[in-house]
């Protein structure tokens, strides 16, 4: 009896797969997403669904154009995850074409133009978000007050359809600034942080999510839970989140101590904006972050540093997307320079000196 020998060992494998990994990440995102959809009403649901579906359709189209089989790649969860993360970074009541254009850009330009899964240099969701932000700044920076489904003030189904698809959005009446946006705008008007913070949403509200912002910018607690889930399941390791959050917190605290009127404190930085989402779900994207642990720490610190710098000094109130993209460009260099020490060799690659024997 002869058995086919086509590959060498090992002949055992852990129960891991790309699909399982992506599914677990989506599961981790589910609580925060569901809460936020409930929080912002039906328009949010429509936008979210549309973004996700467009992502999958674009993936199918690209695979077809490239002559690759759609299954199993279409269903491995990576396109869905990109669309999901992009949706999380959009304003919940944005018009439908924001979601469609964003998804298309993310999948076609952010992923397949580079060669498909595993080949992209930049995080596709962030590429799309930044492209949208720069091209359509108005639609991308109008945030609304929470309007939970079922409570007064929340639009009904027909009204929601009109908001998402009909473009009926009463800017003045409905828009509200996110916490970061509020602080920055007030600073530019000369009002110090200490005063504007009082009018910004309460920290607790930020943590729980009852504040204006994009999907992912609110509800830090649920995102944190999702992140903890991923850590326990060993999908991500603690290096990037800890480095990024630590850097943001330390910088925020130190500079707030130096000049409280100019800089918000560390906790505010952590709980507002997309800090937690970025730390656990966006910066930890496998393809665009370094492979070795040492490199991941440097990468995390870089993302945190750039986020804080952009928030404090640059023209945009939120810096996570830009910070991530900039560090993505550094990833190949970090991988080249920071790698583990090989067994039996020094850090430089020379064999260890022989001692204790001859």
């Amino acid at each position, binding site marked *: 009896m002869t058995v086919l020998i*086509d*590959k*060498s060992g090992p002949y055992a494998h852990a129960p891991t797969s790309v699909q399982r990994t992506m599914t677990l990440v989506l599961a981790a995102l589910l609580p925060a997403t569901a809460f936020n959809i409930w929080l912002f009403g039906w328009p949010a649901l429509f936008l979210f669904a549309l973004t996700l579906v467009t992502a999958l359709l674009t993936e199918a189209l690209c695979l077809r154009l*490239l002559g*690759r089989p759609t299954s199993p790649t279409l269903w491995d969860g990576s396109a869905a995850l990109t669309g999901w993360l992009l949706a999380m970074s959009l304003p919940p009541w944005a018009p439908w074409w924001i979601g469609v254009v964003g998804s298309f850009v993310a999948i076609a330009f952010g992923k397949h133009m580079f*060669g*498909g899964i595993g*080949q992209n240099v930049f995080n596709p969701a962030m590429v799309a978000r930044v492209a949208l932000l720069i091209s359509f700044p108005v639609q991308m920076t109008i945030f609304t007050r929470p309007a939970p489904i079922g409570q007064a003030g929340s639009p009904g189904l027909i009204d929601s359809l009109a908001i998402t698809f009909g473009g009926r959005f009463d800017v003045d009446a409905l828009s509200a600034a996110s916490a970061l946006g509020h602080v920055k705008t007030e600073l530019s008007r000369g009002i110090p942080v200490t005063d504007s913070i009082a009018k910004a949403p309460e920290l607790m509200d930020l943590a729980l999510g009852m504040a204006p912002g994009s999907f992912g910018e609110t509800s830090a607690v649920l995102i944190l839970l999702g992140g903890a889930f991923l850590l326990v399941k060993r999908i991500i390791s603690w290096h990037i989140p800890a480095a990024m959050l630590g850097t943001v917190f330390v910088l925020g605290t130190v500079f707030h101590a130096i000049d409280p009127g100019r800089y918000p404190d560390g906790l505010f930085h952590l709980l507002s904006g997309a800090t937690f989402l970025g730390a656990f779900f966006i910066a930890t994207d496998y393809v665009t972050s370094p492979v070795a642990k040492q490199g991941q720490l440097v990468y995390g610190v870089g993302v945190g540093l750039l986020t804080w710098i952009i928030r404090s000094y640059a023209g945009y109130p939120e810096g996570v997307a830009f910070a991530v993209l900039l560090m993505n460009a550094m990833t190949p260099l970090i991988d080249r320079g920071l790698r583990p020490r090989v067994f039996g060799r020094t850090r430089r690659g020379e064999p260890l000196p022989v001692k204790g024997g001859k």
Partner: protein
Amino acid sequence: MLAAVGSLAVLGATLGTLLGIAARYLRVDENPLEAEIEALLPGSQCGQCGYAGCKQAASALVSGEAKPTMCPPGGRETAAAIAAKLGVTVDLSGAEEMEPEIAFINEDICIGCMRCFQECTTDAIVGAPKQMHTVIGEVCHGCGKCVEVCPTEAVEMRPVPVTLASWHWHKPVSRMVH
């Protein structure tokens, strides 16, 4: 503006003159690359590449007339080394014709005439007059000269046999486009 045009013109003229002088007086006459390429070739002057000898083959390689994969006894390693020296890229993945071959003497037909013995460029053939001749595989590098001179066509070229010692795993087949 006149000053700009004038100064650039003067600069250009000066540098051009300097380059011309260097080209005439600092020229390297002989191309040392040819000697280096020749050192990479086996040196058995077997002629399988179509050139008279290894020196002529080296000239052809340097001038670009011949491809780096032109030396069968040299095998893939030589092709890669030549390509590296010349600074060109060479695609070795599809080069099946570069599989090394060694000579094999069919003992039923061999008459012990010693002609291959005298031709062998690496003394890989052992034998004596009227005695059986055989090829030492570890030394034969497949130049093929013995095949030409054998009067009874007892010598043929065969692929190097794989043994337990020389076997290794094949490359995994990848369906991925990249």
